[in-house]
């Protein structure tokens, strides 16, 4: 009950920040439309709607990190957190309370990308549903990144880290905008070591019906999600018990 009450508050706080919400859902949609327009004028295999949509969906999830990070950072730097920390909420209530409202938002954001893709010619079939499910670990990953950043930084820093750095990392190193093989070298190695390209690849595999290729890319995403979530929980709990409020 305590967790749900707190989760309900967090859901309202995020949904009522209209500018963030419009940007978070609107920007990936605009990119999808823009890149599809480029594709229709100058055909590029990378920008075909079935390859582009999983990439845009993963990119859109970086805004979920921004939402969660900003909310936690704002709470942490306000007296409101003092009120929450003097209540009987435990650290698990906080973590679940922040995570529960974000998961349906992340799924909704992925679904919006696919809904727009349908209008742009993506075939409606069962693979779309499978892809959305395959992208859920990526949603957890971005939620965990937001929890971690929100626990470590203030709201301005979260804006920089999640709003600028993470969105760029998830864009450039995901293989959505350009083929990573074209760049190669260290860039390619860095991209392969991070989870973003693996999330996009597993999504593309699911969407194409090539289910056997979903793994091992998905293991990378799940591994990163679990590790970052554990670190986020440890950092948040440490902050909760520290004198530095």
């Amino acid at each position, binding site marked *: *009950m305590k967790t749900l009450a707190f989760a309900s508050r967090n859901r309202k706080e995020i949904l009522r920040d209209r500018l963030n919400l419009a940007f978070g859902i609107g920007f990936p949609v605009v990119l999808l439309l823009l890149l599809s327009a480029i594709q229709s004028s100058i055909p590029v295999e990378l920008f075909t709607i079935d390859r582009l949509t999983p990439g845009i969906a993963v990119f859109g999830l970086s805004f979920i990190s921004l939402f969660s990070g900003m909310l936690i950072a704002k709470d942490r730097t306000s007296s409101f957190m003092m009120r929450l920390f003097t209540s*009987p909420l*435990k650290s698990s209530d906080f973590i679940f309370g922040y995570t529960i409202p974000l998961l349906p938002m992340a799924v909704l954001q992925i679904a919006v990308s696919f809904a727009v893709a349908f209008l742009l010619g993506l075939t409606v079939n069962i693979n779309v549903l499978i892809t959305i499910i395959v992208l859920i670990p990526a949603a957890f990953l971005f939620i965990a990144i937001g929890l971690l950043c929100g626990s470590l930084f203030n709201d301005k820093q979260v804006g920089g880290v999640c709003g600028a750095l993470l969105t760029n990392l998830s864009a450039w190193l995901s293989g959505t905008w350009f083929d990573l093989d074209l760049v190669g070298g260290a860039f390619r190695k860095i991209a392969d070591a991070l989870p973003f390209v693996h999330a996009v690849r597993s999504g593309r595999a699911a969407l194409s019906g090539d289910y056997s290729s979903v793994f091992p890319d998905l293991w990378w995403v799940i591994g990163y999600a679990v590790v970052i979530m554990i670190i986020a929980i440890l950092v948040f709990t440490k902050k909760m018990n520290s004198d530095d409020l």
Partner: protein
Amino acid sequence: MIAIQTEDLTKKYKEKIAVNSLNLTIEQGELFALLGVNGAGKSTTIKMLSCLTKPTNGEALILGNSIVLDAIKVKEIINVSPQETAIARNLTVRENLELVKGIYGSDKKQSKQKAEEIIVDFGLSEIACDKAKTLSGGWQRRLSIAMALISEPKILFLDEPTLGLDVLARRELWRVIKQLKGKVTIILTTHYLEEAESLADRIGVMAKGELKAIGTANELMTETQTTKFEDAFVEIVEQGGMQI
């Protein structure tokens, strides 16, 4: 019955001693004011008693529960109105109240019911549907105190509740606090001496992390041979206290 009992309660931040061996007993239903200049240790004391920070040494019992060993039990029976207004800005007044009732374990129905009661008691009906961020400073502070009371705490900590408010808003909050006297044990920290003099049953004066004096306003004036409470306060802080 004793509401709060501290025994050599101490808080050190590296080399700095914020609170030094605080020994204090507060009775249930009492309104106790903690006074002191900036850095005297008032807020640190509140933070320790509300389990927000752990003491370096010593112990405090809140209605018999240890702040060190039974923090969750303590948190269930206390509530705090922090120094700065602590509200969820994008939530309405009603939603803020329901939220606090919810995080103290009540279900939705109970939360809604209690929120309505508090809205009436605190005269918040007109603004119940307004978002907290649109309220004036006075209304936000009133909401913050209402949020501290909706969980029906046995002990309420008010950390400088009228800081930054205009005279009218401050008087209005005094009225609200006076209504609570006897029903809830209140620990009030303030810089406004007249506030403590007007509201408190007993007053403790802290300086440099130590409790320098304790008693009613009249007792403190008598002890310091002064006729104004402000003079008594200055005497206690400047002279390093009196026998307590």
